[in-house]
């Protein structure tokens, strides 16, 4: 029992268990991987049986899916959405293009490495990842949550200056409110 709980207190264990089984994903299709999200949520793959369902606004969501490459214009919106989400929050990055730029490595308008701008919990590689891969990615995230290792929000807050510096490098005109969590 102790081993399974991974030296968490009972309260922590229950919290993490419920977080694991109830993941609200942010309805934001940032890239082409978004085409597989409907497939993942519908009959054949049915992610809702794992407790995964959509949430309409960032306030209610737990998981931010970065479905593919991010244009710099979208990056700005993604950062805003990410900062509006409430702790604990998780980020799943889809596709090769979030890992190293993929086929857009030389494009002037897409970022290459997502991790430099916002912390990422799970990467799902492939272009584009199949629904099976997406579900496998979600399960990896669930394991991570159950172990109590998913600390996306804290990582961001602790290294905020570093992330901000990277973000400012891409977003030249920074007109965004500062959130104080």
């Amino acid at each position: 029992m102790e081993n399974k709980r991974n030296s968490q207190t009972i309260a922590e264990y229950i919290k993490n268990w419920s977080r694991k089984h109830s993941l609200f994903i942010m309805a934001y299709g940032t890239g082409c991987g978004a085409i597989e999200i409907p497939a993942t949520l519908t009959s054949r793959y049915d992610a809702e049986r794992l407790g995964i369902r959509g949430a309409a606004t960032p306030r209610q969501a737990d998981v931010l899916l970065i479905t593919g490459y991010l244009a710099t214009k979208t990056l700005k919106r993604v950062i805003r959405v990410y900062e509006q989400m409430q702790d604990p929050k998780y980020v799943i990055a889809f596709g090769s293009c979030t890992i190293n730029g993929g086929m857009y490595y030389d494009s002037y308008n897409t970022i290459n490495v997502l991790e430099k701008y916002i912390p990422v919990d799970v990467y799902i590689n492939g272009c584009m990842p199949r629904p099976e891969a997406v579900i496998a990615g979600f399960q990896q995230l669930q394991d991570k949550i159950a172990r109590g290792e998913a600390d996306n929000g804290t990582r961001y807050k602790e290294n905020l200056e570093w992330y901000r510096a990277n973000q400012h490098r891409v977003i030249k005109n920074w007109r965004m409110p500062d959130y104080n969590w």
Partner: protein
Amino acid sequence: MLEKEQKLLEILKSAFQVEGKVIRNRRVEIWDHKEMVPAILLMVKTQLGYKHLNHITCIDWLEEGKFQLVYTVFSHTDKLTLFVKTKIDRDPAIMPNIDDIWDQANTYERELREMYGIEFPGLVGDQEFILEDWDEMPPMRRDFKTDVYAEKTFFAQPGREDAQDVRETITKRSGEEIPEFAKKYSRD
């Protein structure tokens, strides 16, 4: 065989003294100076029934110092596509505005202004259409080097630098030989 196409070319030639030719069936192209383009387009739209403006293409001929603009119009009655082509100077690039003939030309021209830096006098609408806070050279110009810019602005994942040719990289990193059948596809 190509009567409709020939007839269209005749009409345009007699009206505007343009050069032109029939490319194949359903495709006719004409060349003219940039000042004449709005007049030709207005005439084909109002009198010949070429009411559908497909798009405006810009081709950058960097070596000549010219931009080639192609206006593609289509007639739903004749099922014919007409290309109105013109070449303009690259610097300064100015082209008469046609968004009073077709409303949707407004977006096409805004895109050209943003991507190639072609000015359309009298064009209204936001300066930004697709890009945001862009302060470099218009990116679709051929002398804009996108890879240099990307390297300068974004972070490359380690391992990207030597991965220009995947097969070479594999041999270098792991010592694995390229199989015989794959060698004929090598770059040099």
